[in-house]
């Protein structure tokens, strides 16, 4: 389970302090996909990076499976599979080499690594190209490898930041299928996206962010009723436009 309470974060850019997260609170339960939606610059990536221990919060509390991300970073990282959409695995190593490398980085023993590689190769249909150079793989194959790398240590929590950005239709399906299977397996999944149709299809609950604020969060159907809209796109634009007008 992921729990955020009153998360705030500021960055200083060229001498000017800018608050990028303003009192963000939400939670994501097991066997659930939580979609963090918002336009570019809304604060989605900063929120997910804070969950992944890459960024320290200025204030507020972030917990992963009851471990505080600041106090127990190592335990949190052990429970998290983190993937960003701009991650481009490339180079002359094979998929197997890369998976073994991440196994070592996660301090897994060789037997566990071999077992997990075999499991993931079967689950994600990677067996045919497991020993091929990553640089020679298609976008879909490379994306499968990236996903495999991020969950090699079998994390309970999955944090994906824009996992389908810059991907073709086939590669997007790879990600969608994986997320669906992970949810069935009881994983706790948070993903950010700006593709609303994707969120509508995959997410059990959503949160809409804009200019560092979480404008709303909840089950889509309940949010439609509350805000008198019929779909996620209408909800999104209604809230974002309202926010901009009031600003």
């Amino acid at each position, binding site marked *: 389970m992921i729990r955020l309470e009153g998360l705030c974060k500021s960055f200083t850019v060229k001498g000017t302090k800018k608050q990028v997260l303003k009192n963000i609170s939400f939670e994501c339960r097991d066997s659930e996909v939580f979609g963090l939606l918002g336009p570019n610059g809304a604060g989605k990536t900063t929120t997910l990076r804070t969950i992944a*221990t*890459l*960024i320290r919060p200025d204030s507020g509390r972030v917990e992963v499976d009851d471990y505080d991300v600041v106090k127990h970073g190592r335990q949190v990282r052990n429970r998290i599979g983190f993937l*960003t959409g701009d991650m481009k695995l490339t180079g002359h190593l094979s998929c197997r080499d890369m998976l073994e490398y*991440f196994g*070592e980085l996660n301090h897994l023993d060789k037997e566990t690594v071999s077992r997990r590689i075999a499991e993931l190769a079967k689950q994600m249909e990677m067996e045919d190209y497991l020993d091929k150079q990553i640089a020679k793989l298609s976008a879909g194959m490379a994306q499968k490898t990236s996903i495999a*790398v991020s969950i090699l240590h079998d994390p309970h929590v999955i944090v994906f930041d824009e996992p389908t950005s810059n991907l073709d239709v086939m590669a997007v399906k790879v990600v969608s299928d994986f997320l669906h299977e992970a949810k069935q397996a009881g994983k706790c999944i948070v993903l950010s996206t700006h593709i609303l149709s994707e969120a509508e299809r995959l997410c059990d609950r959503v949160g809409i962010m804009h200019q560092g604020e979480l404008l709303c969060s909840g089950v889509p159907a309940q949010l439609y009723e509350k805000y008198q809209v019929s779909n996620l796109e209408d909800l999104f634009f209604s809230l974002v436009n309202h926010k901009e007008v009031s600003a």
Partner: protein
Amino acid sequence: MMRDAMIIFRKEIRGLLKDRRTLFSSLILPILIVPIIFLGMGSVLGGLQKDAEESVYSISIKGIEDPRFATTVTQFLQYSAAEDDSMADMMVIFPPGYRSGAKASVQLVYDSSSQKNQYAASQLTMAVNAFDQQLTADKLASVGLTTDDLNSLSIVMVDTAPQEARSGGSMLAMLMPYFLIIFLFAGSMSSGLDVTAGEKERGSLAAILVNQVSRTSIAMGKILHVMVVSISSALATFLGLVIALSFPNGGAMFGGAEISAGLFSISSLLAILLGLVSAALFTATVVSLLGCLAKTVKEANTYVMPLYLVVVFVGVSTMYMDPSSNIILFFIPYVNIIFTMKEAFLGIGSASHLLIATISNLVYAAIGVRVVSALFNSERILQTV
């Protein structure tokens, strides 16, 4: 911590060994470049010299009737009398009314833009001087003296330079530090920027940071990798030198016919190696640091290129300098290693200079490692926008 750093190091090395292009530019090219440059240069220069010596020059000689001058000229170069001044490669003009033995200024007309003409002009100058000595000898003979009667002193030169310096080491001391430093730096550039700014640009750095290894270990593993590539490039350059010296007459290209790969003492070679390792570690930390500060490889290149030019400038500007005992120089990165290597190539190595240079570089590198580690431990490391 080192165990985790070695995970990063091993992965980078494995990637390098599978990348043929980087392997070629980091290891194979440096091995080939010194033999190619020196053997190629030696062959071209040798060919030019041979061509200049074997050519028949068209020379117009004017204002002298003494046939002995033409005979003297043939002792220095092959020539034919030019039928027309405009067709002549060069002209030797004695003043009007010149008689052998009279005091006169001889004009030598030649084209300095041609290497062959320059050679012929120097040979003609020697011919004129030889003819002048012949005339002087004639005059002295007429009063019962010889040229030896004019000289009361003779000079015997005693060279105190060590064997290495006398047999071509001075040429090596001039050129090799430059080549070694340049390849050491160039080797660290591609790998150093790829594992820092490149990793950021590809978005894979975040994935590496969300793991069980500490960020300090990641920084150290990457620096270690860059250092190994850097030192390998420099050692490959050195190996190229040894190969060049192993060729027949290889030493002649470095200015001494007796020079050979076995000439250098073990202590000299160790001094060069130690200096290179410390310089490689310093370079690896500096390049990694600049790579961490940049958001993309392109931006990182704009940070590193000025430093590369500084290294080239240091290499070129110290090329013609003699080894110095100025202790300050041995505290300055790159300058210290260049002077330490000069001393080693000349066989006049100083343990204190080597120690100061090595320790200085290691201290600077240690500071660099701390800064790179601090960067890896800060949020700034993930900045790509």
